[in-house]
């Protein structure tokens, strides 16, 4: 039963959602909408489960003094502070329907002055690591790597005003060789051809995978004892 019921639910929901796309009338259209509403209900439990799991995992690490347990302390403290600031609307309008993000509320201040700079800092570090990695890895070792390297140069320079100046002296008849025009061509022709091929491949893969899941052939989502 632990396997059969999820398989039946998956089959019914999956089939109805597919049919509702092609026949958006009663009863399939309405059923399709209802099933998508169920997602919200499941998501609420997933949020609770996720929060609980975070506290359990990191609480355990702190209790057992695992390696790097102080980081777990920071994680738990950050989670609890943001949750309390949001739930109790500290500094903002009280009540369940009050605005937790109104200017001056604790949630808003934490978001603006702690969360945003921290996230931005983490992402900004990428620029440095990308530069370092490019220096070490971008080598014209063979023909393919050289083409990639040249394309990267054109795109990098084509996205800057410097790239415009670099080839602006070219006569009008050779304007297609100007770096910004080359960058646009790379994006519009080879890139687009590649992206389309990938998109078509992904779409076919998704269709195949969806059919496998709906028909119960693919059961890995049921867990380790799915067989």
């Amino acid at each position, binding site marked *: 039963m632990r396997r059969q019921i999820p398989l039946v639910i998956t089959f019914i929901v999956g089939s109805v959602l597919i049919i509702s*796309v092609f026949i958006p009338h009663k009863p399939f*259209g309405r059923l*399709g*909408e209802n099933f*998508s*509403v169920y*997602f*919200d209900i499941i*998501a609420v439990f997933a*949020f609770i489960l996720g929060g609980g799991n975070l506290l359990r995992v990191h609480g355990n690490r702190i209790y057992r003094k695992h390696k790097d347990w102080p980081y777990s302390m920071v994680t738990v403290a950050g989670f609890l502070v943001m949750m309390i600031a949001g739930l109790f609307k500290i500094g903002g309008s009280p*009540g*369940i*329907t*009050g*605005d937790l*993000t*109104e*200017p001056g509320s604790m949630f*808003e201040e934490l*978001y*603006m002055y702690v*969360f*945003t700079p921290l*996230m*931005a800092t*983490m*992402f*900004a570090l990428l*620029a*440095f690591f*990308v*530069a*370092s990695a*490019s*220096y*070490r890895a*971008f*080598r*014209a070792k063979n023909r393919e790597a050289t083409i990639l*390297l040249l394309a*990267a*140069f054109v795109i*990098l*320079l084509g*996205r*800057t*005003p*410097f790239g*415009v*100046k670099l080839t602006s002296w070219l006569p009008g008849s050779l304007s297609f060789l100007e770096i*910004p025009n080359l960058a*646009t061509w790379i*994006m*519009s022709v080879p*890139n*687009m051809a590649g*992206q*389309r091929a990938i*998109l078509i491949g992904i779409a076919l893969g998704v269709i195949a995978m969806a059919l496998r899941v709906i028909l119960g052939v693919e059961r890995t989502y049921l867990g380790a004892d799915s067989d």
Partner: protein
Amino acid sequence: MEFFEKLMSIDRRVIFLFVGAALIVPLFLDIEQKIEITPEVQTLYDAFMELPPGSKVLMTFDYDPPSAPELQPQAITALRLCFDRNLKVIIIGLWPMGPMQANLALETIFIEKKYLDREPIYGVDYVNLGYSPGNELVIQRMGSSIPSTFPRDFRGTPIEEIPLMQGIVNFSNLDFILNLSAGYPGTVEWVQFAVDRFHATMGACNTAVQAPLVYPYVHTGQLTGLSGGMKGAAEFEVLTGFTGKGTKFMLSQSFAHIIVVLFIIIGNIAYFVTRGREKEKIG
């Protein structure tokens, strides 16, 4: 020989230092930049300009603070354009942080002198409906009923009490959608559901990393305009005649790109010189 070998194993902190300088120094420089307008951004701008005053624009903020340097200037420019042209803005987010980013963009705009006297009215000129979980399922449900997908706004006000939302049932009541996206769920999902299934008209502002992925949708006409990364932000600002962070940060990005290109060239020279000498030794 030693020089090139040293170059091959250069300390990464030296590269960090150069990149840091390339990013910071231009912020203090006042260099005029010639920003070329690409057809994709021009199309996006034209789409806004063709909307008659009073048109309803849905802006979806599907990004979080890490992508803000690229997307926030685009959001600010789009919002300013909407308010200047008296377009009504409905904000939502498929990312939990999206509506907060919208609020930050609005705060940035409303402290400008021109808006101090005539600040757009919440609920009449714009509304923030907040975040809804469900990714593409949210878009699908909005195709049937926006009020049932977002029964309250971000402040907790019931949607039926918001003047701007009167008469809005689904995508057919919206004139344009602008998706600001940094990944999943984002532009691809909006195209697949809102555009393909419900025939909405949509443009997109993306991060530079994501823009190449959605290029095919521009050329098929599924996307009405695309603004990608800091360059797109700068172009959008140039078109609207407003110099914001997109244009300002573009200089830093240009210098950083040049530094990266120079380092790659130096790295390749060192690689070929040392490899040639190694071959000579073996030979």
